[in-house]
């Protein structure tokens, strides 16, 4: 009885992948229990649920574990038919959503290079990140010629790209600006992305899911310091 329909999300507060799953659960109105993992001291449960990668997020539903954030998203759409769709209905649109969601994760990985490097290496990482952001902007323009900002009543498109934008860029934007002095989402370089993310950050359900600014700054500072230290060690 206990396992029936119960949803548990194992995450870490600063993981954009876990954040994306968490807001997806909220947006779809699925009740869940959240378990915060300390990645420096992973729980035996996490290691049991995700023995191969030992990572978050892990979604447990009816006692079964699903891992990999975008795999979890697909599972959610297939399992819970009420509430907004995460992926659109049309197969071609679905393929574009899958492509760009995955690409945004790639851009996020490029961003972590910017955080963990300095000097010439950082310059190179910054250049690459902006090149990728430009490609993302062009892609989104093609996918959403009228702009993506969706009103609350609009469910047919699918929420996934907004959730990825929010979790990968929205929640990190201010912290990165303060710690790196770089405007990652620049209104002049990527106007569509900028307007989208600004609008997303105003939605109450997403706003309340943001990490407190001081926490993000402290986290990014120490993450950067640790990385630079180990690079020179």
């Amino acid at each position, binding site marked *: 009885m206990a396992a029936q329909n119960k949803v548990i999300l194992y995450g870490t507060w600063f993981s954009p992948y876990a954040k994306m799953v968490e807001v997806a659960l909220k947006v779809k109105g699925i009740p869940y229990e959240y378990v915060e993992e300390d990645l420096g001291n992973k729980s035996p449960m996490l290691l049991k649920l995700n023995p*191969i990668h030992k990572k978050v997020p892990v979604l447990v*539903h009816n006692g*079964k574990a*699903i*891992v*990999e954030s*975008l*795999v*979890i998203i*697909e*599972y959610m759409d*297939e*399992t819970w038919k009420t509430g907004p769709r995460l992926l659109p209905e049309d*197969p*071609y649109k*679905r*393929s*574009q959503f*899958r*492509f760009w969601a*995955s*690409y945004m994760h790639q851009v996020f990985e490029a961003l972590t290079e910017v955080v963990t490097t300095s000097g010439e290496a950082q310059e190179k990482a910054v250049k690459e990140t902006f090149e990728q952001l430009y*490609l993302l902007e*062009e*892609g989104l323009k093609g996918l959403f010629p009228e702009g993506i900002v969706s009103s609350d009543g609009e469910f047919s498109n699918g929420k996934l790209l907004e959730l990825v934008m929010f979790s990968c860029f929205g929640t990190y934007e201010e912290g990165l600006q303060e710690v790196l002095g770089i405007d990652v989402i620049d209104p002049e370089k990527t106007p569509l992305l900028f307007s989208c993310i600004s609008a997303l950050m105003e939605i109450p359900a997403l706003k309340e899911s943001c990490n407190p600014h001081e926490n993000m700054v402290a986290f990014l500072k120490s993450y950067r310091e640790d990385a630079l230290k180990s690079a020179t060690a």
Partner: protein
Amino acid sequence: MSQVTVLGAWPSPYVYRVIWALKLKGVDYEYVEEDVLHNKSDRLLKYNPVHKKVPVLVHAGKPIAESAVILEYIEETWPQNPLLPKDPHQRALARFWIKFGEDKSAALFGFFMTEGEQQEKATKEGQEQLRILEEQGLGEKMFFGGDEIGMADLEFGWLAWWLDVMSEIAGVKVIDAESFPRLHAWIQRFKDISAIKEPLPDRSAMLTYFKGRRATFLALAKS
């Protein structure tokens, strides 16, 4: 005039995943060869501006890039001979293994791009991932997809034909029947399926091609 076009590059295993999926579902397509090493066409750059890679599937004029994304599209558009199970949790497992294959490709191909001590280390790393595949991905099943071939089998299809060629050229034995009995048995089963076997690239042509690739990789590593 086919509505479906595959932009590919011989003998890319990524392209073969798409070809196999189309053949398994009996979908007619036109194949267009791209010279990705020396001269990418304007068409490829237009259809895949982000990665500039193959495969690209074009259906009724609309392009899709990334083999995993293409396979999902093929599955949804032509549902006959399904390549994913019905149950959501089983589907999540299939997708997990496909992502595993993508994430671990550097580790799996490492033995081919290295030599000497580096190659020893890279081979061991690759074998660790193959061990996980053997014991947890495949386990007791006939195919990664269960009783029938599925999307995850296509993801690992390169193990059934490319690995052997690459191992021969690189001078290392990565897997064999004794150390990886389940994968070895799966390889025979997989290759036996006519839709899989029929389009396989010529082995001696592959030997020539991959000899050249290895030479290029080793030269790049030294520079």
